[in-house]
């Protein structure tokens, strides 16, 4: 149960089909396997204990992933947008790794004592290496780590999530049919290599026999252009990307080849998905909820459920549009209340999951699963009467105003219902009287005027007085990571500084 087995099957089954990159110069599965064997030889020759990848997405990434697997070491894709100190701290954990880095990031690796090659040099080295007899068969046992991905660190210090071979293989076998894709299918991934979807995307598309491409710098124009030029049939985006594709004026949004669009990684505003469903009625939309710790997707809201929800007058069915769907095969999910008991349908609690694909393990800290094998996602949510999961934000984001626990998500949803509000965040700002007070920041459509009093009235009318933001500030944009996650602590810091400044 090694991810190399998936590549072996693809090499056996797909022959001349291009599986990575553009049709004119991409890689077939047998070629990918040769490069992986060559790369594994380099890892062994360097006596490296890992491959650190600090570059944008490209063919060098899948070659590194499978080379690491054959050599029995983990691949560690690192966030190239980290600050210098954070990056140095992280790299100090991996002094014996083989480094692959873009020109602009090579220096950081060299400073950490790693031997560095560029993605192009890595591919050349893999192509020139002569496979030695020991490269014939994957050496790593199923329990060894295949990938180490550091969490985004939006709510705490980045932690290294260990994904073992059996986690990733279980995920692929549980959710994908071998050779399920037609020879004309092509998938576009727009998330960076250090996002779990970039890693899982390589495995699931390869196993399905679907050609996979990546876009290293997302803009709505370049995404639409690549979809049209490369005949993309399947794509995965984070919500902010879909929002930009839908909200940017003057774009040619025709995508005749596109059949399916998956989204995940952060909350999708209902307004954005409704607009997308109207703009692209022929496309199958898929909402995927998952974490790095769960080897990607654990619940899915499928295409038919999207269409049924948007066409329904029944509020319960319509609310499904904001739901993360049903668990994938092999994943069990529980919502637990404050006492640890399984919550009744409709009742909010914290989400726990169990399954072969769930790692729940952090480097240097061991397993974080409970005695029954369940992993605490730290996400809050509820399961409705029909089993659909509704996510209500991170438990760590909960605002405690007085003695009341308030989930920012439900207030954000109300603000986002306003047609001119493009983005919204609600946070708890330190307050002498209440402990925390509720404040909101909104991004308003260019040229539109919004009255903060009117917005506050909208919240009060939908929810209640104690959930109404005391202040609503307008910003040109919200601080989000490139993968669409809000950096709430920066927002709280800015709002706190503003208040102090104003008073002082």
């Amino acid at each position: 149960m090694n991810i190399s087995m998936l590549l072996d099957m693809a090499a056996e089954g797909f022959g001349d089909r291009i599986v990575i990159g553009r049709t004119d110069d991409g890689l077939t599965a047998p070629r990918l396997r040769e490069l992986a064997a060559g790369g594994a030889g380099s890892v062994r020759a360097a006596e490296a204990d890992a491959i650190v990848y600090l570059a944008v997405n490209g063919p060098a990434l899948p070659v590194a992933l499978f080379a690491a697997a054959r050599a029995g070491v983990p691949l560690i894709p690192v966030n190239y947008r980290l600050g210098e100190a954070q990056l140095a701290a992280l790299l100090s954990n991996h002094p014996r790794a083989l480094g692959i880095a873009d020109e602009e990031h090579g220096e950081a690796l060299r400073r950490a004592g790693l031997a560095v090659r560029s993605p192009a040099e890595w591919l050349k080295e893999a192509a020139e290496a002569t496979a030695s007899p020991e490269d014939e068969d994957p050496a790593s046992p199923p329990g060894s780590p295949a990938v180490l991905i550091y969490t985004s660190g939006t709510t705490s210090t980045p932690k290294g999530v260990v994904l073992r071979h059996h986690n990733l293989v279980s995920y692929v076998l549980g959710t994908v049919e071998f050779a399920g894709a037609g020879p004309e299918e092509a998938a576009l991934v727009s998330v960076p290599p250090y996002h779990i979807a970039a890693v899982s995307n390589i495995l699931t598309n390869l196993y399905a026999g679907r050609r996979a491409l990546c876009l290293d710098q997302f803009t709505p124009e370049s995404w639409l252009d690549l979809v049209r030029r490369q005949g993309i049939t399947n794509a995965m985006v984070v919500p902010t990307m879909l929002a930009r594709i839908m909200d940017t004026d003057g774009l040619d949004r025709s995508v005749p080849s596109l059949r399916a669009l998956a989204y995940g990684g952060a909350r999708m505003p209902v307004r954005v998905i409704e607009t997308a469903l109207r703009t692209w009625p022929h496309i199958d939309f898929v909402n995927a909820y998952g974490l790095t710790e769960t080897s990607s997707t654990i619940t899915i809201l499928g295409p038919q459920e999207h269409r049924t929800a948007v066409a329904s007058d029944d509020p319960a069915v319509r609310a499904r549009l904001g739901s993360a769907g049903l668990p994938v095969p092999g994943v069990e999910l529980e919502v637990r209340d404050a006492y640890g008991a399984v919550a009744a349908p409709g009742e909010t609690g914290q989400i726990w999951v169990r399954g072969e694909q769930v790692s729940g393990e952090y480097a240097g800290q061991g397993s974080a699963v409970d005695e029954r094998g369940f992993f605490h996602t730290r996400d809050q949510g509820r399961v409705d009467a029909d089993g659909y999961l509704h996510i209500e934000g991170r438990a760590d984001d909960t605002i405690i105003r007085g003695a009341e626990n308030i989930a920012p998500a439900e207030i954000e949803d109300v603000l986002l219902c306003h047609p001119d509000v493009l983005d919204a965040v609600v946070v708890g700002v330190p307050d002498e009287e209440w402990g925390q007070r509720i404040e909101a920041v909104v991004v308003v459509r260019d040229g539109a005027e919004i009255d903060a009093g009117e917005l506050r009235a909208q919240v009060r009318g939908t929810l209640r007085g104690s959930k109404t933001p005391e202040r609503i500030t307008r910003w040109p944009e919200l601080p989000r990571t490139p993968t669409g996650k809000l950096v709430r602590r920066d927002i709280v810091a800015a709002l706190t500084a503003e208040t102090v400044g104003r008073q002082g």
Partner: protein
Amino acid sequence: MRPRVGQMLASSVDTTAVIVVRCPDSELDITCGGAAMAEANGPGPAATGTADPDQMGGSLLGKRYADDELGLELLCTKPGQGTLALNGVPLPLKSPKPLPASD
């Protein structure tokens, strides 16, 4: 044999190899081409068994073979000529229930 999830099994009469995707916690007789399959270690065992000519229907790469009643599911990782069977009964091909691509 008592199979376990994730275990790789190899045929002793041809090139067939499977991975156990789902299995009950019980003693099972899993055969390929009429001969018992064994845990695959390294490059795979030499083909040493004797094939039953009546059990050479073949198995296909990437297909799932399952007995839903007993809860056994095998995924073929290397194809071959032998028929996969459980307790002497050929394992039927499982029709795929594809999920939409999510990443």
